[in-house]
């Protein structure tokens, strides 16, 4: 595809790196000549220096032939204007990063009126990710798809769990939960298990399930020993704001420690039920006073990475809380992984990741009937959502009678417009109009019939 990336900050840089490696034709626009020089020296892309919202600059970057424009400059207004101009001038699809909460409130209206294909808010995305990690503290990784109605949760099978030495086909008998084991990672190898596959303790397994089913499943296998009921957040910035909103109504009690008094007052107006503490979050006494020892979860969201990391290490030491740490620096990820910090959330990588999966899905939807596509477990597994059309060879027979390829699993069926999710078994059938989620270790599927031998 022909893609224009406007703005080459961390997000723009990551997107460019990833997409140019995948072979797209990319033009980048930035106002800083030095940045353009560096990025064109690093990747095989066309660089244009200028204001991305200028039509002439866009023309120079080849907007008239572009399929997609991604606006990720610092300024929300510039991003929206850039997308609006691109949309009106060339009719290409547009993606904008918009982070100001004021705009986020009316995001649907903006998206509709400006004709944007996607709006990404890094802080909102990060808050969503943190919230789902807190909802499933036992999961190490959560991807959600089918517009949030389905989640793919990765977890480690605990010792002594009913899953240990259990064949996949027997799971439904022993555990009354409607879930499907999608992938199993053992010694770095990923397999899509069939009915005869036997699970072992310490495997990293993943399931596809609706959030309610997932919770029941975790209860049954002995993972969900305690639900998180309290959360301490250090730093009351935008992510904290969105996180509190996401946690509203989940029964998790939130305590926020923030230094700035005006900010504290604002947060307390917005979230009267939360405890807003005005103080220094790095103060050990204050943390103890607010009950860090008894907290179920701890989220470090200050603006300084080092402080966040240090705070998390302290929290790990002082309590059994599930910890989530926000890190803004893209580098040194490998070292952080070795530090046992719990879950690491990086809003910028997350933004880039979301945009990249949007691009992949868009590319897949050209000339195929793939609705969405996700790459999971470091790209080793793909989850695809297909729309089933009239005359498809998978319609009719029971799933157990379909001769599917090895490493293919029909993980969920979304039937009808009401968003009802079916977790299929061998007797299930696929009908016209269904949306089917397929999990596979193959790549490049373009039609549902590709799953057959």
């Amino acid at each position, binding site marked *: 595809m*022909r893609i224009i990336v406007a703005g080459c900050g961390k997000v723009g840089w990551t997107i460019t790196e990833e997409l*140019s490696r995948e072979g797209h*034709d*990319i*033009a980048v626009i930035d106002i800083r*000549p030095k940045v353009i020089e560096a990025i*064109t*020296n*690093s*990747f*095989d*892309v*066309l660089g244009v220096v200028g204001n991305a919202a200028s039509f002439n600059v866009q023309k120079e970057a*080849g907007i008239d032939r572009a399929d997609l424009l991604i606006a990720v400059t610092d300024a929300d207004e510039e991003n929206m204007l850039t997308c609006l101009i691109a949309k009106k001038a060339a009719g290409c699809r547009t993606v904008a990063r918009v982070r100001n909460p004021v705009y986020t409130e009316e995001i649907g209206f903006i998206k509709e009126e400006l004709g944007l294909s996607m709006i990404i808010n890094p802080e909102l995305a990060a808050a969503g990710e943190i919230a789902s990690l807190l909802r499933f503290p036992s999961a190490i990784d959560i991807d959600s798809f089918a517009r949030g109605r389905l989640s793919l949760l990765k977890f480690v099978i605990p010792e002594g769990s009913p899953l240990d030495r259990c064949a996949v086909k027997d799971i439904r008998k022993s555990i009354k939960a409607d879930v499907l084991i999608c992938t199993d990672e053992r010694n770095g190898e990923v397999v899509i298990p069939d009915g005869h596959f036997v699970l072992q303790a310490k495997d990293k397994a993943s399931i596809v399930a609706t959030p309610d089913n997932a919770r029941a499943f975790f209860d049954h296998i002995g993972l969900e020993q305690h639900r998180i009921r309290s959360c301490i957040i250090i730093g009351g910035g935008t992510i904290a704001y969105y996180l509190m909103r996401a946690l509203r109504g989940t029964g998790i009690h939130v305590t926020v420690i923030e230094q700035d008094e005006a900010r504290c007052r604002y947060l307390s107006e917005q979230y009267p039920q939360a405890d807003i503490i005005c103080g220094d979050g790095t103060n050990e006494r204050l943390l103890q006073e607010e009950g860090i020892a008894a907290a179920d979860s701890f989220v470090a969201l200050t603006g300084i990475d080092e402080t966040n990391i240090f705070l998390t290490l302290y929290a790990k030491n002082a309590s059994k809380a599930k910890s989530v740490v926000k890190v803004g620096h893209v580098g040194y990820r490998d070292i952080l992984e070795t530090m046992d910090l719990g879950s690491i959330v990086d809003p910028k990588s997350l933004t880039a990741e979301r945009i990249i999966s949007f691009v992949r899905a868009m590319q897949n939807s050209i000339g195929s009937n793939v609705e969405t596509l996700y790459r999971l477990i470091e790209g080793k597994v793909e989850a695809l959502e297909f729309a089933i059309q009239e005359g498809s060879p998978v319609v009719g027979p029971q799933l157990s009678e379909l001769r599917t390829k090895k490493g293919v699993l029909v993980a969920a069926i979304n039937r009808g417009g009401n968003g009802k999710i079916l977790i299929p078994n061998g007797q299930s059938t696929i009908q016209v109009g269904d949306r089917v989620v397929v999990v596979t270790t193959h790549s490049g599927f373009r039609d549902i019939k590709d799953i057959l031998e």
Partner: protein
Amino acid sequence: MNNKMILYILSIILKLEAAFLLLPALTGLIYREREWAAYFGAAVLCLAAGFLMSRKKPEDTTFFTKEGFVIVALSWIIMSVFGALPFVFSRDIPNYTDALFEMISGFTTTGASVLDNIDLVSHAGRMWRSFSHWIGGMGVIVFMLAILPSSGANMRLMRAESPGPSVGKLVPKVKQTAGILYQIYIVLTLIEIVLLLVSGMPVFDAVTISFGTAGTGGFSARASGFEEYTILQQGIVTVFMILFGVNFNAYYLLLAKKWKDAFQIEEIRWYLGIIAAAVVMIAINTRHLYPTAFLSFHHAAFQVGSIITTTGFATADFNLWPELSKTILVTLMFIGACAGSTGGGLKVARMIILVKSVRLDLFRAIHPRGVKTLKMDGKSLDEETVRGVSAYFVTYIVLFILSNLILSFNGLDPVTNFTAVTANFNNIGPGLSLVGPMGNFGMMPWYAKYTLMFDMLAGRLELYPMMMLFIPAIWRKR
């Protein structure tokens, strides 16, 4: 330094050269010359050496700007070293130093020859000489980039080989950019061949002359140069020489139907302006030498086109022209063609930037608090580009003076030596006096020849790649 990657790319270059060598071998077969075997043998040798140097792609394919420079410089050297072999094998040019000089002169599109009478050279040899112009004109690395799968670092290679102060891309991918450049190049060359054939030129001459024009090289097809061709044929060549001296970006803009942008490129306006002014002055200055005003205009146009694009063809022995005309021609030698064309010299773009920065300095002297920015094509130039051009100019002058000093050991007259360096450094070919259009470089001693070979390569590759080879830090292991 990523030595394995350098070796790998050099091996690709040699394999490409093996393919290129098949054209002269085929020519030899067509003309039933036994020399074809020498060219075919050299092709086999290149292929064997290419396979020997690297069997599989290295794992670490990253390289940086310095590797880009070194790869380009070494590629051109190794290509010339191997390309000179068939001249010796076939006894077309028995002496290896002479053969190497001829080869480098060919690849760098200089067109300076050591040969007295090229009619004695086989058709295969003459085809290889002219074909080397065509290969060197757009560049072998650019050719490689056009046919090889692209990778991120390739832009460094393209920048290192392509002429001009700032090399940009036409489309997002290097591979496609290189492909577009070569398509334009091939189509223009074919048009010239067809036009020359229609005008009645023999096939061999039409092809070799077109190769020489396209690469702005200057090796001619026969000893008599252009004298035996008709005015029309000379006219066609004049037009095409000037066309090949134009920045190829302009042709891309024309293809993309961006007429306005194409005609607004400042460099091309200056380029055409300089040509017009020089033609008028020389036509008036040489009016008394020719029977009609048309003829003096015709010869002035041919010579100006030939010299400013650094081709170096000659319809007339301009050595015999009045001093003013000769001085104008030598001045044009330094200016050279447009950046992004196949021509050599300092490049019109650099001259514009230099002139503008001098004007800016004068403005600042008059108004110490004045604020003014340098602009080109309506865009302001950043300080880095301007500084780069000034540094390039200084390096150019220093290398020029040093080469001139070394050459003067040969005891020939200063005009010969000065114009010899000028003609080789700027990739033109003929100079004045003993190395004029009717002379050759055969009488130069060996050290002068090697100095001129270095100058040709440095001139074609825009100085830095060749100079990089002499920096010890480059060769240290990283």
